[in-house]
């Protein structure tokens, strides 16, 4: 036990006690920032509930049309409006939108285009019928009313 015994220079271990916090932070970051929607919605969109749903098969063949009360009621009023891509349109613009969407597809697939109507529950049939009529004009006959799965009361 001399005073001058060699001091053992052990490198201190890195504390891992804060690792969970970092990982949790990452976890929360991913959970929060996972964005599912590409277009910004300008209309209210609460989908109706239904039980007998069918899945949309090929995502590339699907185009979306949103119908609902505008979010910015001071600018656009309270009557339900139609949104395609990022703009509010009138029913007359629908055929042009369909042709533009069809142009993006391969020639063989153009007839298979499916229009997914995301209509707010508070909308009336009038505007939906107008859109359907225009889709008929534009030869986009496959239509899907987007719905949320409801719990079946019979089962």
């Amino acid at each position: 036990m001399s005073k001058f015994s060699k001091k053992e220079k052990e490198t201190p271990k890195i504390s891992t006690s804060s690792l969970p916090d970092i990982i949790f932070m990452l976890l929360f970051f991913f959970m929060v920032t996972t964005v599912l929607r590409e277009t910004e919605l300008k209309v209210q969109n609460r989908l109706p509930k239904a039980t007998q749903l069918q899945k949309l098969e090929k995502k590339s063949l699907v185009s979306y049309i949103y119908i609902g009360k505008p979010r910015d009621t001071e600018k656009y009023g309270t009557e339900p409006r139609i949104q395609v891509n990022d703009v509010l349109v009138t029913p007359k613009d629908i055929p042009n939108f369909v042709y533009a969407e069809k142009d993006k597809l391969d020639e063989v697939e153009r007839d298979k285009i499916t229009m997914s109507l995301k209509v707010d529950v508070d909308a009336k049939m009038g505007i939906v019928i107008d859109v359907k009529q225009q889709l008929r004009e534009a030869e986009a006959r496959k239509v899907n009313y987007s719905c949320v799965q409801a719990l079946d009361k019979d089962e």
Partner: protein
Amino acid sequence: MADIAFLLLIFFLVTTTIASDKGLFILLPPKNDQQMDVKIKERNIFKVFINSNNQLLVEEQLMSINQLKEAAKKFISNNGRDPKSSESPQAAVISLKTDRGTNYQVYIAVMDELKKAYNELRAAYMGITLAEYLQIENDPKRQTSKFEEAKKAIPYQLSEAEPTNVGGN
């Protein structure tokens, strides 16, 4: 602790999928200027009308929405027994008419009930439950010849008439 957190992190990273879109499919009639005369016997048409107050008129009778499915099933699977009802499932057509003022939510609820009537009949034809039928319908790999047969035996025939205009826009 870190391991559990890592596990959760990886779990979320892997399972985060964009919620798959689901809905009710319809096929619009083709664009046609000249009206074609399609002759369907009166007895083979099941008329459903929703007015602007969201009331349901089925075969000239006021009906609530939860009675609709049974009425539709009875009509489709009549097979000529009742002279006022359909001759066979293949001949039966459901005619749905709405008003411009009808709520979209009610329209979807009616479409759902009608689809359910057909699905239940098809499931019964195949000898499976409704839940099993829905799974098969959404999975092309599991669609056997029996499924096609059921579709052919009980075809989903829904015709949408031009709307009335009472409720306005």
